[in-house]
């Protein structure tokens, strides 16, 4: 970046497509005022409409760097939700003429169709929205982790998101196995590193492949933000004889470009409330590779099932017979055959709304912008370290970035490991400055400059707040000045006498 990039008027000139800028207005971003407010009054922040009678700056949108934890709300989500009122049960089957929603029965299929670019899936048949991430992980393991006496191990990352650990350990127990005999964990290369090199992963694979039935890894590691080499690891694991390779893509979908079909991943699971902006706890997603879809014609003398075993329910049955209440389970083709129950229609509506925003751009464009935006952030942050901002008396820098420096080895998130004891102060100052970041106690903050709704200006603005870390907090008389400013404005607006401030303590 050129030296004048530190001036906040740097336009999104670094190759950022115009479309991505326009998309920001598709989102409701919390304002500084609304983040501070104590009561729910049902109003949505609108730019230009004053939420508070205080500092005009408060009406500005916050700098929302937590899309990796909870994505911002698309404005169209509300519109999509308005159908259910009028139709009762007929909404299950009949498309409404003026409704933006497809008939509920087809909604999951529609969401799958809208996800092809996001995932690099070959067809909507590989994709299904259902359940939650951890349940989908269990359903995939129930189908694809079929341990034999010889091949019974699961290789996983050491310290993945805990839900994955718990899922794997409990799934092993369900088979009468135990993590102590059947779980291989991949640790970071050495005690200093937080990342795990591909070479190291491949070494572990080579060592244990002949006894391993399943490899499951995060596409992007939640804590460090490291992006794993999904195609290479998948290919080499298969080549080494590991029959099934699955990926937890909670932090990868909507963040980095994926070509899951071409990469031959056996399955992938993800949640939709991070980069897919579908709301807290929204219905999750799953991909099942084409080669697991095959359903043999029914044959009365066949010993084998004719399709991949799975924990089943009525909604995974072929649609044409689903409401016939037949007893013999024949799965629907593709990923849809793994459904168990009918899904939440409002949840699918939220996912559909959010996916619609992705259709206004492409993963290629988003990724291109993110690489620059995150690079810009990193450049600034490194500059702070160079300038010794917030440095301690022991000459320890205030933080170090533990996310890989190579853009190809990370998504849009940066994880900062703060010097011990700084976390409380840093998150407080950031919050005061209207910068929302994610905190991982005891010492890490994660920042996610999501290209859909974060701007270069936001990065610059947040760095300005970071810079103030080494300064003392606003002195009392400074605060008083601001309050009395607000009071005057109030008085002018409502034609009343200026308020007399009581002692600010």
């Amino acid at each position, binding site marked *: 970046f050129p030296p004048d990039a530190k001036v906040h008027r740097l336009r999104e000139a670094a190759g950022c497509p115009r479309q991505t800028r326009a998309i920001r207005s598709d989102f409701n971003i919390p304002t500084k005022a609304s983040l501070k407010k104590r009561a729910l009054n049902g109003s949505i922040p609108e730019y230009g409409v004053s939420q508070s009678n205080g500092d005009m700056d408060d009406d500005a949108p916050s700098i929302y760097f937590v899309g990796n934890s909870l994505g911002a709300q698309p404005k169209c989500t509300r519109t999509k939700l308005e159908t259910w009122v009028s139709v009762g049960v007929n909404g299950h089957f009949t498309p409404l003429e003026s409704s933006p929603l497809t008939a509920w029965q087809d909604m999951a299929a529609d969401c799958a169709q809208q996800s092809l670019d996001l995932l690099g899936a070959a067809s909507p048949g590989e994709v299904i929205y259902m359940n939650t991430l951890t349940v989908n992980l269990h359903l995939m393991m129930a189908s694809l982790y079929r341990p034999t006496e010889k091949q019974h191990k699961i290789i996983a990352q050491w310290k993945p998101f805990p839900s994955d650990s718990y899922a794997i350990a409990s799934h092993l127990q*369900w088979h009468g196995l135990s993590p102590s005999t059947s779980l291989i964990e991949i640790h970071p290369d050495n005690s200093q590193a937080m990342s795990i090199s591909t070479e190291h992963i491949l070494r572990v694979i080579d060592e244990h492949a002949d006894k391993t039935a399943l490899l499951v890894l995060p596409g992007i590691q939640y804590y460090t933000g490291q992006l794993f080499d999904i195609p290479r690891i998948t290919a080499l694991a298969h080549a080494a004889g590991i029959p099934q390779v699955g990926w937890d893509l909670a932090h990868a979908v909507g963040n980095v470009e994926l070509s899951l079909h071409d990469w031959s991943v056996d399955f992938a699971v993800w949640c939709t409330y991070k980069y897919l902006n579908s709301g807290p706890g929204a219905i999750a997603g799953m991909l099942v590779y084409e080669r697991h879809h095959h359903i043999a014609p029914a044959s009365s003398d066949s010993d084998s099932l004719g399709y991949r075993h799975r*924990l089943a*329910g009525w909604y995974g049955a072929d649609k044409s017979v689903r409401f016939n209440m037949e007893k013999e389970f024949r799965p629907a083709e593709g990923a849809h055959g793994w459904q168990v129950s009918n899904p939440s229609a409002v949840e699918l509506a939220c996912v559909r709304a959010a996916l619609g925003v992705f259709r206004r751009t492409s993963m290629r464009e988003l990724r291109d912008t993110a690489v620059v935006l995150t690079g810009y952030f990193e450049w600034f942050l490194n500059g702070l370290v160079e300038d010794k901002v917030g440095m301690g008396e022991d000459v320890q820098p205030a933080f170090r970035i533990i996310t890989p420096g190579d853009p190809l080895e990370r998504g849009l998130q940066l994880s900062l490991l703060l010097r011990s004891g700084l976390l409380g102060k840093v998150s407080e100052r950031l919050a005061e400055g209207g910068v929302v970041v994610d905190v991982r106690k005891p010492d890490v903050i994660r920042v996610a400059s999501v290209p859909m709704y974060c701007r270069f200006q936001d990065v610059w603005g947040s760095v300005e707040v970071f810079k103030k870390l080494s300064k003392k907090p606003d002195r009392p008389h400074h605060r008083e000045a601001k309050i009395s400013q607000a009071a005057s404005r109030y008085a002018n607006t409502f034609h009343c006498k200026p308020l007399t401030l009581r002692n600010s303590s």
Partner: protein
Amino acid sequence: ATIDAGSGGSTTDKCVYLCGNSLGLQPKRTQTRLNQYLATWATQGVQGHFKPLEGSPLPTWLDADERAAQLIAPIVGASEAEVAVMQTLTANLHLLMSAFYRPDINGKHKIMLESKAFPSDHFAVETQLRHHGLDPSTSMITLTSASSPEDNILTTSEIISAITAHASSTALLLLPGIQYYTGQLLDIPTITAHAHKHSIFVIWDLAHAVGNVPLHLHDWDVDAAAWCSYKYLNGGPGCIAGMFVHSRNSTVTRAITDEKPEEGYTNRLAGWWGNDKRTRFVMANKFHPVKGAAGFQLSNPSVMDITSLSASLELFHEAGGVGRLREKSVRLTAFLEELLLGEEGIVGEEESSLFRIITPRDPEQRGAQLSLMLKPGLLETVMRELEKRAVIVDERRPDVIRVAPAPLYNTFEDCIGFVEAFAAALKVARAERGT
């Protein structure tokens, strides 16, 4: 609900909606609560998880599951710790079976269920057996009624006898609190007690019972149960479901720091949301469940769905609980039955012969729903004619109509409206058939 009433009716006339057993109607409050949820997400972003807002009827998102458990507990007759609002019905059945169905092929390995179980239950059992390498032909027992071969209304004594007959090889019994097809209400406490005498674990599918009839799952000593929320609970299509686990089945007797802590609780398919809330975000690597049904949760739940469900459950409380609703329901359904049996003269003699009520006559053996078995070939015409008259009921091909006056929002007038339309529909069907 309003629907195009076809010829003659105004488009704002309410339809006659007796389909709450399939999809409950939307409480008006739901839209308010969902708007509040959307406003919270839009204005608070990630803070919605933990920042309480004054004047908001909504809990913070981290507490939403607990709040929902508080609301559902009295509806099923359990303590808060015995219920969890989570997942979907069939997923919950799988999760319960994964925890509590531990077959021994040389001892107790069979799962017993009714022969006309809702297909999802059947598929769930079948595939659980397969997971253990068992075969449905040897490890699944399906109950048929000798006394009621056509409708399969299993009497309590038939079920008891079947349990006794297969006791030595049966590990698990899965039954519906209310049978979806016939509307029969089973004797949950008696059947459960008898199964326990023979060390059989009992799971009840309460899809059609919850919010319909009073339940006392804790006092009845029920082992576990699961239900969906979009029928009588009016949570919305596919809304987040629920499960019950009796407190004696969800104990945690060792701390995570003890030796072999996993031996202090029933192993289950786990996820982070089953951990103790206070330590959940510490991101420890070992699972140790919180005691109670909450320990069976896996993922952070859909806040939108919980908000929708909780909005509806508020109404249940305001209405005085399921017990009070049941008082009205018994009268409502009895009135519907009277009308159908022709006692008011709405249904003519010839029409009467075209259907029969297959639901038990005894109010103690049914909930709100009546199932009407039509003579063959009439269903399509009848449904078409009903819809023309803005009457919404549920069909079960080839010949059954289910009619469920829900006490929360249906009226005695609705029953009259239905029967009048039904009689007219039957006349048309009869004429078309030329009889």
